[in-house]
C-alpha cells in the first residue's frame, strides 16, 4: 500500500480528498474561501506545512512511543507553523498581510494531525512526503475551487489580488465581471456552507455515474 505512489496521489486529490471526502479542515475552509486567491494561498501554505510535518513525523516514528505521540506531534506541528509564520512575516511581508491571519489557523487544521496519525506514523519518509504533497494539493484544489465559485457569485471577480500572492506577472488571472454587483450571501458564511453542500452532492453524483459506467462495461466482458 505504502509504495503505490499513484494511488497515494489519486487518494489525496480525489478519492480521499481532505475537504470533499474526509470532511476535515472545514473551519479554515469556510474562513478563507471568500476568494480564489485566498484559497490558493492558504492551500499552498498548508501543503508546505503538511509535507514537512509528514516527513518529520515519519522520521521519528520509531523513537516516539505510542502513549506520548499526540503531544509530541502537536508540539512539532505548532513549532513548524510558528516558524513558517515568522519566516513569512519577515521575508514575504506583502503575502503575509493577505494571509497572516490564516497562517496561525494551520495549527488547528485537523488534516495535518490527521495525516500524521493516519499515515506518516505507519509509513516511510518518502511515502509520507508524497502523501503530504498529494493531500495538500487536494486541499489546495478544493479551497481554490470553492473560493473561485464564492468569489464569482459573491463579488463578480475571479482571482482578485492574485498579483499580491503570486507576483505581478500573474495579474492576467484577475478578471472582473462588468456590471455585476454580486450576491453578498455567497461571501458570508452561509454561502460557504451552501457551496460546499452543492459540491459534495455533485461529487457523489459524479462518482455514482462513474461506478455505473464501470459496472456496465464490466458486465459484457464477464458474460
Amino acid at each position: 500500500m505504502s509504495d503505490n505512489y499513484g494511488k497515494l496521489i489519486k487518494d489525496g486529490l480525489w478519492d480521499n480528498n481532505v475537504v470533499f471526502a474526509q470532511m476535515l479542515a472545514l473551519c479554515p475552509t469556510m474562513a478563507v474561501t471568500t476568494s480564489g486567491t485566498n484559497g490558493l494561498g492558504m492551500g499552498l501554505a498548508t501543503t508546505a506545512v503538511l509535507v514537512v510535518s509528514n516527513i518529520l513525523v515519519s522520521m521519528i516514528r520509531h523513537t516516539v512511543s505510542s502513549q506520548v505521540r499526540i503531544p509530541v506531534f502537536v508540539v512539532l506541528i505548532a513549532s513548524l507553523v510558528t516558524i513558517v509564520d515568522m519566516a513569512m512575516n519577515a521575508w514575504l511581508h506583502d503575502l503575509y498581510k493577505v494571509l497572516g491571519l490564516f497562517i496561525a489557523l494551520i495549527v488547528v487544521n485537523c488534516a495535518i494531525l490527521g495525516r500524521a496519525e493516519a499515515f506518516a506514523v505507519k509509513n516511510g519518509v518518502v511515502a509520507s512526503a508524497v502523501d503530504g504533497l498529494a493531500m495538500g494539493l487536494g486541499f489546495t484544489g478544493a479551497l481554490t475551487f470553492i473560493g473561485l465559485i464564492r468569489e464569482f457569485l459573491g463579488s463578480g471577480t475571479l482571482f482578485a489580488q492574485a498579483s499580491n500572492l503570486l507576483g505581478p506577472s500573474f495579474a492576467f488571472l484577475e478578471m472582473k465581471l462588468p456590471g455585476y454587483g454580486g450576491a453578498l450571501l455567497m461571501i458570508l458564511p452561509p454561502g460557504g456552507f451552501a457551496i460546499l453542500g452543492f459540491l459534495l452532492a455533485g461529487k457523489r453524483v459524479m462518482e455514482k455515474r462513474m461506478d455505473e459506467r464501470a459496472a456496465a462495461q464490466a458486465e459484457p466482458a464477464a458474460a
Partner: protein
Amino acid sequence: MNLEAIREKIGYQPFLLGVFALLASGALAWASSATGAAIAAAEAKDLRDSLSEVLPQGMADNDFLKDTVDLEKGGKTVTIYRARKDGEVKAALFKVAERGYAGDIQVLMAVDNDGRTLGVRVLKHAETPGLGDKIEVKKDPWIKGFDGKSLGDPAPEKWGVKKDSGIFDQFAGATITPRAVVKAVKGGLEFYDDHRQEILGGQS
C-alpha cells in the same frame, strides 16, 4: 536492550516529551532571533506607508516615526507622530478607534495646526463585506469626505451621518459603520483640540 523495550519504560515518556519540548523551544528561539530584525523593519515600513498615505506629499521633511509624543486618552496611551518641516510641527498623525458594527474600527488620521483633517484612512475593521467595508479607500472614496473638515466646519450638530441630520453619507444597508467612523474622526479632532499645546510643544 533494543529500542522496542526501552520505549515501553515509564521513564522514557517524560524524557521523550522533555527532549521534544527542548528541541521545539530551541528551534523557535532560533527562528525568532533570525526573523526579529526583518519583521521589525517590515512593520516599521508598513506604519510609514500608512502614515504617508494620510499626510499630503511635501508636508514633512523629518522622520516622523521617531518624532513622537505619548498622550493619555481614556486610560489608553495614544502615540502622536509629528510631521515637521524646517523644524516646525506642521501636522500630527495618530490612531483613534471606535466600536463599529463588528468590533473596533481603527482609524488613522492626520490633523494640521489649525485642527483640520488632512487625511483619514481606516487601518483595520471587521465590518460586513460588501456593506460596511465601503469605509476602505480602495472600495469607495467616501472616507476622503473628511479631508479639510474641522470641529467648526461643519457645525458640531452637523457632525453625523445624513440619517442623524449630519452631512456625511451613510451606505445603503449600513448606518452603524459610517456613524462609528464619523464619531471616531470627531473624537480624534476633539482629542487634538484638548492636547494641542502638548502636541505642538509650545510652538503656536
